């Protein structure tokens, strides 16, 4: 409908006031939201725990074992993951042959959609950062970690390195260069899926994951006591 396009843009241009100066943007209010790294971790946790996110702490080396222990404790049949990331490779390396099955998401969804919707217990993803101010994980789904990995399985396990936590979404957008170029999908996730549409009563797990488990890896440099 190129005629609609022309008509709309013509009307807007006729009304626009090109000479008018654009109001200045004062971002001081965003810049003053700033915390030291250790406090960022606490803030993120506080924000996310308030909306029922669960945390498992792990060291830079031991995180695959923490995930494995969780899966066994919960009696999960399987864990879907992206085999192409280095974290995925680490996980595969240490994963035992028996117990929870580690299932790679390495095919087009059309070939296993039914299994994805019916039979997968949990999905594992990495993150590219976190947001301290409000709590939240930043994800870049894509070829290595498909979009539905963090959405369809009832449990989402996400790996977060403490050093990647930014102050605010605003500073994260800058740090990650999202303002210049974005992958086809990028995400902020602050907790398991929730709704308050029935009498403002919070209920978790409405469409997306019922549980969000953050494997929080403490990779901050040790501060002297």
């Amino acid at each position, binding site marked *: *409908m*190129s005629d*609609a396009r022309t*008509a*709309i*843009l013509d*009307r*807007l241009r006729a009304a*626009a*006031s090109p000479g008018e100066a*654009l*109001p*200045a*943007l004062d971002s001081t*209010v*965003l810049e003053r939201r700033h915390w030291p790294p250790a406090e960022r971790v606490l803030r993120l946790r506080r*924000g996310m725990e308030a909306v029922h996110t669960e945390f498992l702490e792990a060291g830079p080396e031991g995180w695959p074992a923490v995930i494995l222990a969780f899966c066994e404790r919960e009696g999960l049949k399987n864990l879907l993951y992206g085999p192409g990331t280095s974290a995925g490779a680490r996980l595969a390396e240490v994963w035992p042959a028996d117990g929870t099955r580690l299932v790679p998401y390495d*095919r087009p*969804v059309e070939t296993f*959609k*039914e299994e994805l*919707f019916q039979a997968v217990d949990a999905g594992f993803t990495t993150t590219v950062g976190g*947001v301290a*101010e409000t*709590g*939240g994980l930043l994800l870049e789904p*894509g*070829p290595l970690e*498909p*979009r*539905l990995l963090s*959405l*369809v399985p009832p449990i989402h396990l996400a790996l977060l390195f403490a050093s990647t936590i930014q102050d*605010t*979404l*605003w500073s994260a*957008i800058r740090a990650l260069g999202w*303002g*210049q*170029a*974005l992958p*086809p*999908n*990028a*995400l*902020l*996730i602050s907790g398991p*899926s*929730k*709704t*308050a*549409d*029935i*009498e*403002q009563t919070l*209920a978790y*797990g*409405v*469409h*997306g994951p019922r549980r969000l488990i953050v494997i929080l890896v403490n990779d901050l440099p040790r501060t002297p006591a």
Partner: protein
Amino acid sequence: MPAETEIHFREAAAKALLDPQLRANFRRAMDGLIAKRQAQFPDPKDLQDLRDLSTAIRSRSLLSLPDLLEQLETSCARNGIQVHWAETCEQGNTLILNLLKARGATKLVKGKSMVSEEMHLNAFLEEHGIEALESDLGEYIIQLDGETPSHIIMPAIHKNKGQIARQFSQKIKNAKYTEDVDELTAMARQVLRQKFFEADAGISGVNFAVAETGTLCLVENEGNGRMSTHVPPLHIAVMGLEKVVARLEEVAPLYAILTRSATGQPVSTYFNLISGPRGPEEKDGPREVHLVILDNGRSRIYGDPQLRATLRCIRCGACMNHCPVYTRVGGHAYEAVYPGPIGKILTPQLEGVGVRHDLIHGSSLCGACAEVCPVEIPIPDILVRLRREATHADAGSKVAGKGTGRTLTEDLAWRAWAAVLQRPRLYRASAWLATRFRRFIPGGLPLLRAWTMSRTKPLPAPRSLQERLRSEGLPHV
């Protein structure tokens, strides 16, 4: 000349006021939302700084709107998102229908979108044999009953859980009656998961569109928006043309103030940034993404420097949460897609100020809406302006239906009012009559009759202030 098919807010509101359940549901909900928003903004200066920044961002975006829309189109095309333009709702609906038909799509899941409500898209698609299922829990609940949203953020806020329990037990196969909210939610989850699984296409709204990066931003808590936009092979997003901003960085403060203003949440569960369909290496995501940009009167609103502020709106709903009128009558009484204060200024501009004359006056101009608006839309000032537009056909005005709410009675009344009040002696004479015959003012006078419907007759003082000052002189302390 009275406007044709005028819609009377007064009658619908009066009916709503007689429903104690509805009034209790809204009062409780709005009191809760007010408190939750307040808790998110403990520091008034911080709030004002964030509002100033948000207002500046939205104003900037509007100032360069045509350029930004073109840039958005280019960036989207670069990302593989196909952009379509619709001047009217009808055009938009047809466009979407054709996209669906060409791909043989018959089952559709929808994420929440007020623009699609504005287009009455569901009804249109159903007429053409396409199932359009609302997947937001609140939207799903009202769709089951064939209702429209009563709030732009919480569409089923007028219902309590007993009503929803009854409805689910009747309309969902094999559902038992329960008032447990977790169980009700689980029932909806089960039905809708299957629908996401089967859907041929997903439709969503857009909270912000970023011109520079060609990105569609979606804010939600439930995950149904992600399901609708990432599971089916086809994703169609619809947005009003005002939703564009220049840069992604500018979205961050708008998002921050949106969730806090709307539901008192510092952040939503999901903030979903879509910048393209499934890439060549990707395993999932839609094969095609389309963006429909709707005008439907917005470019006309844009043409008026004062009314343009209406288009700054980011649809948070804080104005309705804080509105004493909305709180008492609920969303349906407005008989409009957008209820509450923002609806009171937007609906008449879209549909005509004459047919909505009654709605424009359905406000005490208390200003609670403007006080909380995150982008500082001066709603009361715009209401006053629209009241003028309804009764005056000013040259140069582009307002739809201007002058069609004019009546001879009102004209004469204001002329008489001005005639008396410009003449102090006439005013004094009237005051003398009103005070002397204060107990004998006929209660049947039209305005007095309305006043005394719920109040006693106002009683003027025995002698007016001016009369006392004239006879006694100024007091001396």
